[in-house]
């Protein structure tokens, strides 16, 4: 009779063993991936793309977040697009000219650019779209991206009517955009979904529901086919698209999957061609068994610790802030915790940003013991010692990776400086509320992902006037440098000002950059045309499925 429970245990343990991949005798079976492209009987190719969270809306002017942007870039096309390698390239506009004073842009729309219902895409459509994007009534979360355009800032604040925006249709196929000040990164902002045109008759006829299948009229390579919330968003090829002849994939299916392990299982089981997340614990196995499917690229994002300079202990204490920054061994964090090829951050601007060599902490290349000795010296200079240690709280939003990083930093601050560090985690919205108010935060973790490929999207964040200023950092010197570089033409002079701004920021240390992000994808070998780019932008039209 004792044999019976034993039998049950055998069943369970064998199940567990089978799941864990057994002894690993067969190399392939320990990380099986089914290679099975979906090609239907009539030859239709289907691209099945894992896409993170369910998008809240597919209105280009109201959407936020990466998942919605991925879908919107397949559905709509802006004046410019981003090439597979990350450069600005012509989109719906075939060409453009920029005036000598860098204030007036004239875009020549393609004569064959069409909406999915066959109507031509006109300059008026872009005027309508950009006005809608800055109109406070639309309540676009990215309205501020358009502030380079003349009067946009005043319109967003409700001080001017939307039709005063510096955007004008010269004729059906020529669009003139006037800027308030020269802006070197302006073209890049036009590839962002909030710069996309929308089809005015559809918006007027259906209101909020103009995004739904059946109502949606789009000008990109694909158009809406079906949308089942939390299950799947299906797009079909838009026959009216000007470059339809060069579009390879017939259908794109976006799967909202928030759990990285679930996404990986579905990828392995042959249900996805593209996975947008990889659990950190599986990265090493993926590197070993499917290196050709793992795509890791540095991107425009920085993971940082903010220090609230409005309150003790960080108020008027640059030495202390520098000491804490110096005491963190960033290599340990990227090698042992994140493990996805992230780059240790010794500056504020990610190296993936095009054409800018960032400033670096001058201590970045010191050996560990010297770096730590200097950190201790600064710590003592700030008035702390073994008898009077710093007491500080690290706050982060509840998440496994954040927790691990916070624990490691806690240990580093404790062992290098002798600081007493408490950890506190909060749910995302509660956390944001605390960071925003700054009433009781001390050190907190946050991240910033750039909106376009220019250092300004990172510099802007630390301007005292910028939206979410959790550190309370307000430096006139920094603000002046930031505003100056934003309107200078690219070149050595701008580089110099940017360097000065970054150096100022690093010296003041209201933020401690920890690492720069990488994007991590799993892409099946039969999906061709993938080229990594730092913008983390991948149009389905540039890919193909070759069984």
């Amino acid at each position: 009779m004792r044999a019976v429970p034993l039998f049950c245990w055998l069943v369970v343990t064998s199940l567990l063993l089978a799941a864990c991949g057994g002894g690993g005798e067969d190399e392939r079976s320990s990380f099986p991936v089914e290679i099975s492209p979906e090609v239907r009987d009539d030859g239709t190719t289907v691209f099945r793309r894992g896409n993170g969270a369910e998008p809240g809306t597919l209105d280009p002017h109201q959407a936020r977040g990466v998942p919605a942007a991925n879908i919107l870039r397949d559905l709509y096309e802006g004046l410019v697009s981003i090439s597979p390698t990350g450069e600005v390239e012509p989109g719906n506009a075939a060409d453009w000219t920029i005036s000598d004073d860098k204030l007036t842009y004239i875009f020549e729309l393609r004569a064959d650019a069409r909406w999915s219902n066959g109507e031509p895409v006109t300059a008026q459509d872009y005027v309508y779209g950009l006005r809608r994007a800055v109109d406070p009534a639309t309540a676009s979360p990215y309205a501020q991206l358009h502030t380079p355009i003349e009067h946009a800032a005043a319109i967003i604040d409700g001080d001017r009517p939307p039709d005063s925006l510096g955007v004008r249709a010269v004729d059906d196929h020529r669009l003139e955009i006037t800027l308030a000040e020269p802006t070197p990164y302006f073209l890049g902002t036009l590839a962002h979904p909030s710069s996309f045109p929308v089809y005015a008759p559809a918006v007027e006829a259906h209101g909020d529901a103009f995004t739904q299948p059946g109502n949606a009229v789009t000008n990109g390579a694909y158009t809406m086919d079906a949308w089942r919330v939390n299950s799947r968003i299906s797009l079909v090829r838009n026959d009216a698209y000007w470059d339809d002849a060069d579009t390879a994939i017939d259908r794109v299916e976006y799967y909202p999957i928030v759990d990285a392990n679930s996404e990986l299982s579905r990828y392995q089981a042959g249900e996805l061609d593209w996975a947008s997340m990889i659990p950190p614990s599986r990265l090493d196995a993926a590197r070993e068994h499917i290196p050709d499917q793992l795509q890791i690229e540095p991107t425009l994002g920085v993971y940082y610790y903010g220090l609230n300079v409005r309150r003790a202990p960080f108020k008027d204490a640059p030495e202390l802030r520098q000491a804490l920054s110096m005491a963190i061994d960033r290599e340990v964090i990227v090698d042992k915790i994140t493990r996805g090829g992230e780059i240790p951050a010794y500056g504020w601007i990610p190296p993936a940003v095009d054409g800018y060599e960032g400033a670096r902490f001058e201590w970045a290349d010191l050996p560990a013991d010297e770096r730590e000795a200097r950190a201790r010296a600064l710590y003592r200079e700030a008035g702390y010692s073994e008898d009077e240690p710093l007491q500080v709280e690290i706050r982060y939003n509840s998440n496994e990776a954040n927790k691990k990083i916070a624990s490691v930093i806690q240990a580093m601050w404790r062992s290098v400086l002798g600081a007493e560090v408490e950890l506190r985690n909060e749910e995302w919205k509660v956390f944001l509320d605390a960071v925003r108010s700054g009433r009781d935060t001390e050190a907190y973790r946050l991240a910033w992902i750039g909106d376009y490929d220019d250092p300004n999207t990172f510099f802007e964040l630390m301007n005292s006037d910028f939206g979410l200023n959790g550190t309370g950092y307000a430096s006139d010197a920094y603000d002046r440098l930031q505003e100056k570089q934003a309107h200078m033409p690219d070149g050595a002079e701008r580089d110099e000002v940017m360097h000065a701004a970054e150096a100022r920021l690093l010296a003041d240390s209201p933020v401690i950059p920890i690492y720069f992000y990488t994007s991590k994808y799993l892409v099946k070998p039969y999906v061709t045309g993938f080229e990594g780019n730092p913008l983390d932008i991948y149009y389905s039209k540039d890919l193909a499925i070759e069984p």
Partner: protein
Amino acid sequence: MLGYTLRRLAGAVPTLFILLTLAFVMMRAAPGGPFDGDRELPPQVRANLEAKYHLDESLYVQYGRYLWDVARFDFGPSFQYRDVSVNDLIASGFPVSATLGAASLAFALILGVPLGMAAALRQNGAVDYTAMTAAMLGISIPNFVLAPLMILVFAVYNDWLPAGGLGGWQHYVMPVIALGTAMMAYVARLARASMIEVMRSNHVRTARAKGLSAARVVWVHALPAALTPIVSFLGPAAAGIITGSVVIETIFGIPGLGQFFVSGALNRDYTLVMGVVLFYGILIVGFNLLVDLLYGWLDPRVAYR
């Protein structure tokens, strides 16, 4: 019995009202709002959004407006899914959740009751030990462990079942097992205990004394009485399915109501959370009433007053 049903239904209204009020107060008391993100909205944009969703009004006015809408079965627009209403979301998620829940319940009862009966009739025998060990395992292994394990074995290592998503009946097999196993195990244990007790009761002894066949004694005289505790377990079981389905839906990527509940709460989607809370409330109240009515049918000693 009709009078009893009507009285119970009338009694549910204040319960649901209190539930809704609590949900309203708790959602509003949580720090952070639906429009907070790591990007600050321009003040004019925020003001417009708040006006659109009536968040600029006083809480009393908002509460009154919401109650009036709910009384007309309009749960309002979702904050998070801008393009659809809460009614649409519930209408799309409920059939999926209901299918999953009903199938899990059926799985639990169809397997659990016979398992428990078999164990009881051969108490302390091999069948009993096997069944009860299996039941203990079923209760002990949490569904968030069982589910990924099954996915690995049946979808990744072997191509027998889909790893997730929604499609044909195959997509329901693993979720139903994951959601129903613990309940099945619990039902089996309940059925065993109650069967053992009933088999020793006077009416079963009488039935035996009359010389009825063993099968007739078990199926006609013992089983209905033994089912009473299982029926009373169905109320909490329904609640368990609802809370358990959140995990299962996330793991298997099933577009049911559970995901709306969680993502709604995390995103401070006030209308969506309250809509789902109220909907769940109605379901649970309804289920409990059904259970109470079933009692009377199974056990002649129960009278409705």
